């Protein structure tokens, strides 16, 4: 069954169509990649799916619930998590605290209890910290646990974002160019990491330029061009799709 269903999705900025009449589905437990040339609307699509932007037209349903126009934190509550192409790390916090923010939905938000530091809070907080550390080790940033976020390298921050997104225990994880700006070794590590995440049962949606990485790990691909769907299918099908070849070679 499909976890995420998009139909007729359209977003315009001042008359320009960034996404135009886009429909597709994502099945549970798959790795689904979105590819396309620069400006094809991939990040815009992510922003629409996660509620950062409001669609001009069309519908998004998640687990059978219509969620178009809902706020990001509502979608997060429903089990949607993401990373960003341009890092969105809280530089005013330590690395582990960034990941702990990711567990926000699983924590108590009573300010009075927090101010009084009631035992229930400290207990929960301790568990949260342990979980965050575990996740940092999982994504391979174990050595940065006490480091401030602003003292970490770009590659480490990319992985820290994934840890933060995983901390929410999402049903679907949207990764926006997780390998951008990384060198070969780092890319391979991220490749492995995504595979690990998918194996743990999380549906992954991926925007990526690195074709090798994409073809390697994706179950399905969606090809965008100028905000429209150009092609859709398994890596094998896409590789042989004449329209895709034309667009990529022609460009």
């Amino acid at each position, binding site marked *: 069954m499909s976890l995420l269903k998009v139909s007729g999705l359209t977003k315009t900025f001042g008359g320009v169509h960034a996404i135009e009449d886009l429909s597709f589905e994502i099945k549970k437990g798959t790795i689904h990649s979105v590819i396309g040339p620069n400006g094809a609307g991939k990040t815009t699509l992510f922003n629409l799916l996660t509620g950062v932007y409001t669609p001009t037209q069309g519908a998004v349903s998640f687990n059978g619930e219509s969620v178009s126009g809902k706020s990001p934190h509502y979608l997060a509550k429903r089990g949607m998590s993401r990373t960003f192409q341009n890092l969105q790390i809280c530089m*005013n*916090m330590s690395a582990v605290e*960034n990941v702990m*923010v990711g567990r*926000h939905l699983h924590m*108590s938000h009573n300010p009075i209890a927090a101010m009084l530091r009631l035992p229930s809070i400290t207990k929960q907080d301790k568990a949260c910290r342990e979980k965050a550390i575990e996740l940092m080790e999982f994504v391979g940033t174990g050595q940065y646990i006490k480091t401030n976020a602003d003292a970490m390298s770009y590659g480490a921050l990319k992985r820290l974002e994934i840890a933060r997104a995983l901390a*929410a225990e999402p049903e679907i994880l949207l990764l926006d160019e997780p390998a951008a700006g990384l060198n070969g070794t780092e890319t391979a590590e991220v490749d492995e990491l995504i595979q690990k995440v998918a194996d743990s049962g999380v549906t992954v949606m991926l925007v990526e330029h690195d074709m090798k990485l994409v073809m390697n790990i994706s179950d399905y691909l969606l090809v965008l061009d100028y905000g429209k769907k150009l092609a859709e299918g398994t890596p094998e099908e896409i590789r042989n799709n004449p329209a895709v070849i034309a667009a990529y070679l022609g460009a």
Partner: protein
Amino acid sequence: MFEKLNSPRTGGLLALILAVLILPLFFQNTFHYDVAIHVAISATVAISLNLLVGYAGQISLGHAGFFGVGAYSSAILTGWDFGWSPITAMLVASLAVGVLALVVSGPILRLKGHYLAMATLGLGIIIAIVITTEDWLTGGPDGLSVEPLTIFGLSPQGEAQWYWVFCVVLIASVWLSLNLIDSPVGRAMRAVHGSEVAAQVAGVDTTYFKTLIFVMSAMFASLMGSLSAHYSGFVTPDIAGFHHSIELITMVVLGGMASVFGAITGAVILTLLPQMLTGLEDWEMVIFGLILMLTMIFMPKGLVPTLLTKFRRGEA
């Protein structure tokens, strides 16, 4: 053990308590107590303002307005027209300020950066103008005298007793703030500052948390306004004015944003400095402005965070 002493919650709090206990040994007269009390009042307000500005990243240039509403509400409600008990008046005032903050927070907290600065500044100035103008209620520019404070039949007499009252309040607020910052609520708040969109996709209802901290910090300012009104026995519109707002935010920024002890340091400096500069007569403003500028130019993160980083680097 040493690890714990190094943390702000244990070590910092202990040091603060120690300082509060030792300081009176140096006090020679009630004026010294008075200065210390002013430091404590400002520090407490600055800490709550720092939660909003330093931790949650929302500028407020109108916080003295809330302080003023608290002070004036207490003055008016405990006055002969109403004759309420100070504690009731204080709580009601703080609730009213909370409601006011809640009402305006909707539209105000959608704003960012300089627009937010402008809106809060405007709000503070409007409050000050209302207080100055409605003299049938507030005594106008000449101010209003305030009944003494009585809580459960007890009433602090003289500066020395008030000193302990305000120090207890200060220490309590330091403890509560440190707890809050290091909690899921506090992290959500700081995430709003670090990256609003990241916080949102992590499931943080940023509007709720911004509103929460804005309302809390306004209510806190109001409570301190009430207390300080009872202490000084007199309120004038100056306490709600633009200059007081600027003074409060300066304490936060000078001492160090996102640092509880920074707010205290800022309050100490901004309260003592004018007292120390009095001998300079006409040059007072020049020196004050210069100190403010130089500190911020060379330590843009504020005194405490900058010095801490220096020390840590030295240790490492």
